[in-house]
Structure formats: structure tokens, C-alpha cells
């Protein structure tokens, strides 16, 4: 029993090494196939990371949905007390928090933005109105928040109430659409892998037609004939997917610098991250499975044409 298993194992290993040897014997063609698979797989992997990075940032921004209440500056006599207004607002159950940003604080914040320092220091006087940042209760929908902003805007002390999140929603809808596109692309790439492997297997069969014919004649089983093609297909997919994973991470690494700098401009932290090994393993596994199945179907199709009639 154990012996039989060892014989079985050694025969499979033998075929595996033969397949590797065969790939090695045609380095250019093998490299082309492997690279085609790698590039095709790297593309959706990179896009997926970009899209999920964007989604994270957007949901972070959406979570921070705040209403900015710019108060009338108020003349000397009837000065508005922003803190008192804030206290009053906090009594509203749909308002969770109110933060007061004085014109001075606002100016300092503005001056901290890259490139703004010179402009701010050139101002003769502080043009900023007092600001109340209203944080709505969590769970308030965008529509509800919008009507709250309208209501607050009608208050006498309020000059204008700004709540502009529509664009954010539009953007995240677009990002989600792009995400779907990436998923569709991944499926297409899968189909592409199947076609590439099927094509190389077909080529392999025609290159080895004489060998297959004689093996068939002397009593080789279908499994025996099929095995080297299955291994070659799976092996090319394994190498292609592993290379694709590496390639995706190299591209993400190259992008992360510029993207980080870009995000900093918008006060955001945007991490592209990398395709982690467990995801990499899943991609490799699925690709190998596709290659194996594609090879199997292609060889079986060939057998079907060979069958005695």
C-alpha cells in the first residue's frame, strides 16, 4: 500500500520535473506565456488595490460629515456669542457635537495649508467669520443632514450653512462602479488565461502528436497522456500568477510614493498598501485551477476527435 503510494507519487513528481524541463527547453515561448499571464493578472490586482484604497478614504470622509455654520461677524454692540449659540444647538437631539473655530484659529489652519502661508500673511485683516462645526448624530442620512443644514441656515445668527456632500456621494458611486469594472476585468482575465493555456496545450499536442500516437498505440491510458499537459498548464499558471503578484506589488510600491504625496495635499492619508500573501495565494490557486481545467478540457477535446468510430 505504502509502496504503491510512493510509486504513484514518484511518477507524478517525474512528470512535474519533465514538464519543468520542457518549459526550460523553450525558454522564450514559456517566458512569453508566463509574462502574458502575469501582466494580465497584475492589472486587476493593482486596480483593485487602488479602488479599495479610494473607497476607504471616501467612507472616512463620509463618516466625517459635518455642517459648517458661518456666523454673522456681528457688530460691536450686539455681538453674537458663538459659544452660547453652540450650547443652544447641542440641545437639538440630532446634533451630537458642536465645535467652535474662532476666526484666529481658522486663519492659522489656513496658513498651515501648503502654499497658503504667504497669501495669509499678506492679508491686511482677518476676513474669516466665526465658525461653528456641527457634527450630526450618527445614523443621520445625507438627506436628513441636508435638511438640518437648511434649518440651521435659517437661524438669524447664521450667515450661511454649508453641507456639501453630494459630490462625495457621486464620487463614491463612481468609485463603486469602477470597482465593478475591476471585478469584470478580473473575470475577463480569467477567460484570457483559459484561452492562453488552451492555446499552448493545443500547440503542445501538435508538437507531440507522434509521441501521443505511439503512446496511445502501446496502451498508454488517457490519464497518462493527459498528465504532462495538465502539469504544464498548471505550472505555467503558477509561475504566471506568482510573477503577476510580484509585479502588482512592484507597481503598487512605485505608485505609493506619489499617491501619498497627492493625498497629503488633500489632508488625507491614502494607503495603497500591497496585495498580501494570502490574497496572492488565492489568486495563484484560482489561476492554477483555471490552467489545469483549461488543459484538461483541451486534451479531452483532442481525445474526442481521436476516438475510434
Amino acid at each position, binding site marked *: 500500500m505504502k509502496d504503491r503510494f510512493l*510509486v504513484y507519487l514518484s*511518477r507524478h513528481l517525474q512528470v512535474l520535473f519533465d514538464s519543468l524541463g520542457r518549459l526550460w527547453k523553450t525558454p522564450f515561448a514559456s517566458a512569453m506565456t508566463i509574462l502574458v499571464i502575469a501582466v494580465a493578472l497584475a492589472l486587476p490586482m493593482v486596480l483593485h488595490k487602488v479602488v479599495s484604497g479610494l473607497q476607504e478614504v471616501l467612507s472616512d470622509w463620509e463618516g466625517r460629515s459635518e455642517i459648517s455654520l458661518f456666523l454673522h461677524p456681528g457688530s460691536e454692540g450686539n455681538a453674537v456669542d458663538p459659544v452660547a449659540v453652540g450650547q443652544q444647538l447641542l440641545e437639538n437631539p440630532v446634533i451630537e457635537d458642536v465645535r467652535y473655530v474662532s476666526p484666529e484659529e481658522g486663519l492659522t489652519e489656513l496658513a498651515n495649508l501648503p502654499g497658503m502661508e504667504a497669501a495669509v500673511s499678506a492679508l491686511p485683516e482677518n476676513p474669516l467669520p466665526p465658525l461653528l462645526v456641527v457634527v450630526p448624530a450618527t445614523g443621520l442620512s445625507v438627506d436628513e443632514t441636508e435638511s438640518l443644514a437648511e434649518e440651521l441656515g435659517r437661524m438669524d445668527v447664521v450667515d450661511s450653512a454649508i453641507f456639501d456632500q453630494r459630490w462625495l456621494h457621486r464620487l463614491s458611486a463612481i468609485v463603486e462602479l469602477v470597482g465593478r469594472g475591476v471585478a469584470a476585468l478580473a473575470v475577463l482575465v480569467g477567460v484570457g488565461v483559459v484561452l492562453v493555456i488552451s492555446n499552448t496545450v493545443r500547440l503542445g499536442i501538435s508538437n507531440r502528436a*507522434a*509521441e501521443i*500516437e*505511439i*503512446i*496511445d*498505440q*502501446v*496502451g*498508454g*491510458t*488517457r*490519464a*497518462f497522456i493527459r498528465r504532462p499537459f495538465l502539469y504544464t498548464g498548471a505550472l505555467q499558471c503558477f509561475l504566471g500568477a506568482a510573477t503577476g503578484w510580484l509585479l502588482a506589488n512592484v507597481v503598487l510600491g512605485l505608485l505609493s510614493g506619489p499617491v501619498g504625496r497627492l493625498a497629503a495635499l488633500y489632508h488625507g492619508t491614502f494607503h495603497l498598501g500591497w496585495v498580501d500573501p494570502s490574497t496572492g495565494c488565492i489568486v495563484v490557486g484560482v489561476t492554477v485551477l483555471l490552467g489545469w481545467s483549461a488543459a484538461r478540457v483541451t486534451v479531452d477535446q483532442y481525445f474526442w476527435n481521436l476516438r*475510434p*468510430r
Partner: protein
Amino acid sequence: MIRFSQVWKRYPNGHEALKNVSFELPRGSFTFLTGHSGAGKSTLLKLVTLVEVASRGQVLVEGRNLARLRGNRIATHRQTIGSVFQDHKLLADRTVEDNVALPLVVAGYEHREIRRRVRAALDKVGLLSRARVNPITLSGGEQQRVGIARAVVGRPKILLADEPTGNLDPALADEIMDLFLQFNQVDITVLIATHDLRHLERIRSQVLALEQGQLVLGGEAQPVA
């Protein structure tokens, strides 16, 4: 043992290559299959190895009804038959030794056993010294002997040959035929398709003659010559 009972073979294009063929070759017999080109000799041999299937009638080989065989049992059936081809069908990408080893590799023999048997088979056809060369460097007669070594290396019960001497000069052809006779001594059933009537004169044997798909000599009805 090979037995055909009222076997017909019609190819998909409608051509009837064999018509109502019946005969029996007992175990250990030596038989020539003759007939003009297109008479159906190769077709008959292909029915034995199940490369083609009979359209009607029954083909029995070593007690197996071939119509019933499926999948791996077809492969196992072929492992009990050694085939020799006019064009040798040797693979140019490997040595003589590896060519001869193929039936044993396919049958899953262990490495050392394969080597032992391959050497023995090459020795029998007198080509042990050429084991490591590429078959394309051999003469036609030598290549045919490699083909025979490959056919017998798996110790088949049946040896089939389709025009094994077609490309050889008479002296070499006789040598090849003597090899077949030699293997027949060890109880292998031998069936050789040839249109070279010289062999029939030289070697006493059973003869099956086909004419346009019909058996005109050696069939069930006729007494065996």
C-alpha cells in the same frame, strides 16, 4: 487467440473496408494477411488494436469482446498486443533505449525492471550496442528491429505487423521475418500484413487473403492451408 465473427467495417465516409469477415487464429499461430493495396489489411489490424471499431459483428481477442471495452480497459488491452509499423514510428527525440522502453513506462513498470527488459529485448534483435544512439542514425532495417524490440518488450500475447518489410531489400526482409518466427516460438500469436508473396513461399504458415474487403482465403469456411 483472435476471432472475427461476421465482421463489417464501414468508415464514416461510407466506404466498406471489410465485409462479413470471419476467421479464427489460435494461440501461438503464425499467420500472413495478404491482399492488394486497399483490400482492408490495415483496417483488419486496427480492429484488433481497437484503433477502429467494427461496425457490425464481433471481434474477440484473448477471450475479450472488444465492443465491450471502455476507457482504461482499452489501454490495458493494447498493452497485451505488440505492434510493428511499416514506418517504424520511432521517436526522434530520444534514444533507441527510451523508444523501446515506452510500453513499459506506460504500463508503470519500475525503473530497474524497465532497463533489464529493454536490454534483453535489444539483445534479441541484435542491437544492444546501439542502445544509447538516436534511432534516426540507424539504417531502415535496424530501425525496424528497434520497432520489433519495442513491440515485444512488454511480453505481449499477440504480435501484429503492418507491412514490416515494405521498405527493406529482400535479404533484410527475410531477417526481419525470421525474427518474427523466433518470437512465435515462445507462444506469441503472430499476424503479419504483407503483399510480398515471397514470404508466403518461404515460410509455412496460415494465410488470410483479402480482396476488396472480403476474405477469400483462410476464412472460417475454408480449411486452413
